[in-house]
């Protein structure tokens, strides 16, 4: 019986020219800017969650910024990304604005989902963010579906599914892998392995530390990479996107990273008896932004003062967004029944 098992591995080349191939200077600065924007925006959001000004649940992405920055910069504006409950980073890196993000967090009419969604439902169709979903693993089939549409429309676009390690445990992940493989869908599966699904460590949920093998049974090329190394993420993502765009089908990247704060909310969760302080500290030391900062300085692509200025600029943008959100009205009551069904 013939199966779909021919496989061209787009990642071999990545390994071959790993450190040698420099990501060009402008792009490195852009990656840094994006990551810093995610970081500062979320630190601010964490404060707002602490004071309860943000009432919806907030799943912080702090520590994982390299993944969305590295992946989204490998995409065109029209390429689609599907996110999860933890998608502030995906939203900002794909081109979503700070104002609609903060307004959404505050439940305002100017929010990206007009206040209906909250932190877990972010959208900006103008830059390839068709929506995020907090149902674990639901981003996976939707991205494949978007890829199917891209393929049928022959529009040359690629869809990306962001999802966590936990999402690989839902049945729909496996169903989607089969369909993506047999139809050579232009989709990239980005698994952000932060080693926890809420408070469950990966080692209690999986027999082996072999998430990157998840593609193998379906002959989907896959690789395990350092999700805290933004340049590595970018290189691999570019290869995966190229692979998809040229009609060679899906691929799977396990990006190993870590979420600094608790599963939901701003707390650090040092003392829940779930993860050890040393473990968190080890990962804090591997901060993806710090790592790139050092490289930028070493390459003399940026100076300390450039970085300070950039940070200030970003902080100003964030304060502007927050002020905008605070001044915005709540959604009007008469809009309540709108868009339950399509209006014509």
């Amino acid at each position: 019986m013939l199966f779909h098992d021919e496989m061209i591995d787009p990642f071999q080349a990545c390994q071959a020219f790993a450190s040698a191939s420099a990501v060009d200077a402008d792009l490195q600065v852009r990656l840094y800017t994006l990551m810093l924007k995610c970081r500062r925006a979320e630190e601010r959001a964490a404060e707002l969650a602490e004071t309860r000004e943000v009432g919806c649940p907030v799943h912080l992405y702090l520590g994982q910024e390299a993944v969305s920055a590295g992946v989204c910069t490998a995409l065109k504006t029209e390429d689609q990304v599907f996110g999860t409950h933890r998608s502030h980073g995906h939203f900002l890196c794909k081109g979503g604005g700070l104002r609609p993000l903060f307004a959404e967090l505050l439940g305002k009419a100017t929010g990206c989902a007009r206040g209906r969604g909250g932190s877990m439902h972010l959208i900006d169709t103008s830059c390839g963010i068709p929506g995020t979903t907090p149902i674990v693993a639901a981003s996976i089939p939707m991205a494949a579906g978007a890829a199917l549409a891209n393929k049928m429309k022959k529009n040359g676009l690629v869809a990306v599914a962001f999802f966590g390690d936990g999402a690989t445990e839902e049945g729909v992940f496996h169903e989607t892998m089969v369909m993506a493989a047999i139809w050579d869908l232009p989709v990239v599966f980005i698994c952000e392995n932060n080693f926890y699904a809420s408070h469950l460590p990966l080692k209690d949920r999986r027999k082996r530390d072999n998430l990157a093998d998840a593609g193998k049974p379906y002959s989907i090329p896959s690789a395990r990479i350092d999700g805290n190394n933004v340049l590595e993420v970018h290189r691999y993502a570019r290869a995966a996107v190229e692979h998809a765009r040229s009609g060679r089908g899906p691929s799977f990247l396990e990006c190993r990273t870590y979420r600094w704060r608790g599963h939901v909310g701003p707390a650090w969760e040092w003392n829940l008896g779930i993860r050890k302080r040393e473990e968190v500290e080890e990962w804090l030391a591997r901060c993806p932004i710090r790592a790139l900062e050092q490289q930028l300085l070493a390459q003399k692509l940026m100076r300390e003062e450039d970085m300070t200025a950039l940070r200030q600029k970003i902080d100003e943008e964030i304060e502007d967004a927050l002020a905008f959100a605070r001044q915005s009205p709540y959604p009007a009551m008469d809009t309540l029944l709108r868009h339950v069904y399509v209006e014509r």
Partner: protein
Amino acid sequence: MYICENNGWAMSTPAQEVSAGRSFARRGEAYGILYKTIDGNDVEEVFDNVRAAITMVLHGEAPTLLECRTWRVKGHSRSDQNLYRDKMLEQEWLASDPLQRLRAEILQRKEATAADVEAVEAKVRQHIGAALEKCRQLPPAPAQTAFEKVYAPAYPAAKAAPASAAVEQKAYWQAIQEALCEALDRDERYFIFGEDVAEYGGCFKVTRGMLKRYGKGRIVNTPVSEAGIIGLAVGAAMGGLRPVAEIMFMDFILLAADQLCNHAAKLHYIYNGQVKVPLVVRTPMGGYRGYGATHSQCFDSLLMKVPGLRVVTPWSPRDAKGLLRTCLAGDDPVVFVEHKALYGTIGPVPTTDEYLPLGQAAIVREGKDITLCANSYMVSLCLQAAELLAREGVQAEIVDLRCLAPLDRDTVAKSAAKTQALVIVEEGPLTLGLGAEIAASVQELAFGYLDAPILRVAAADTPVPSAPELERAVLPSVEKIAATVRRALATRG
């Protein structure tokens, strides 16, 4: 041990058209499962491999996966004319028919003569013919048996605490945990099964501390796999255990809907009482927290439409404990629906071992002017509305349904007959909800007594939005309940 019978076809779809990877068996590789592909039409090969696999399963810890390549001789089912398969391929497979192969081999090895084999074949044919004839002569199953064995019989007798019983003030979550601990203490067949239930103590902390007391063997963390959680729980219940599964938010029960509604709910009935699925699925429903459309839903009234399931929705800590005790002791699949907004509420719980009956509503406030019928957290809102209304001179009676399946229609109808007016309050969307069912039932049972139209307070027929303003507008509130009561009373003759 998993046996995948790869017959090459899923109805009319050839396997290779819809399968990825080198083989089905190789999927085992990603999960550390031993796997092998064998010739499923060679009964001796199957036997040897299965025997080896059983040894491995018994002696190692790894499950095994055997992919047996075989062929479906006929169409998929009666209506399938089998017109879509390549005739050459079909001939090839038919030539390797497992019976013919074994027959030829036996003869070749001279383990039997052709006459011996034919005798066996004749005997089997005769057996089947006789059985069929006998079945044809049996009468059809009597119609009334269609209504039997929807639920398993065994429930402990209801045992309400006497009014004089000592009580302790307990939180809702605590009452639930105590009922769980009692079951785990009493009988080692009980275990807790779900996402984050062990170290973390469950998303809403109901099982906090239980890991220490019972260990990892009985407080079992699962992967993020709702269909698997309920599916395995059903299997474990059929295998003689008494699983208590937790689904983190009621919204996610949809991911396990097949296991719950097509299996847990129906097996006892389909197999005419030969199997039982003593399974309790605990799950919290409800909004009022800004969690948005996928983390706020109330599917209690949806599940009451699935015969075979018990649906229990306690409001008070006392009911939570007394009802859960009964559910845990019973033999039916139960969805025990908790409410996020209630976990912290505190109330008196008798110190005696109270078993409350399923399907008995409770009057939680007496009044003469109008009946408010509600369940779960809506009872809290009704009580507050009743206080408001009392200041206006309206005495509302409140019926807490406590349990939706079985549903106590009589208590509601009696109360409505007494007050002559009824408002039903539920948190789920209006259309085809609890209110629709109760209103229909009450007009059947007490039409002549009603003096005002039956009105409903429910969520709007929209998804639940996240923004606090919008969420408040969509969900029931004290004000909305009070206003609806006023409206009902205003129409009174």
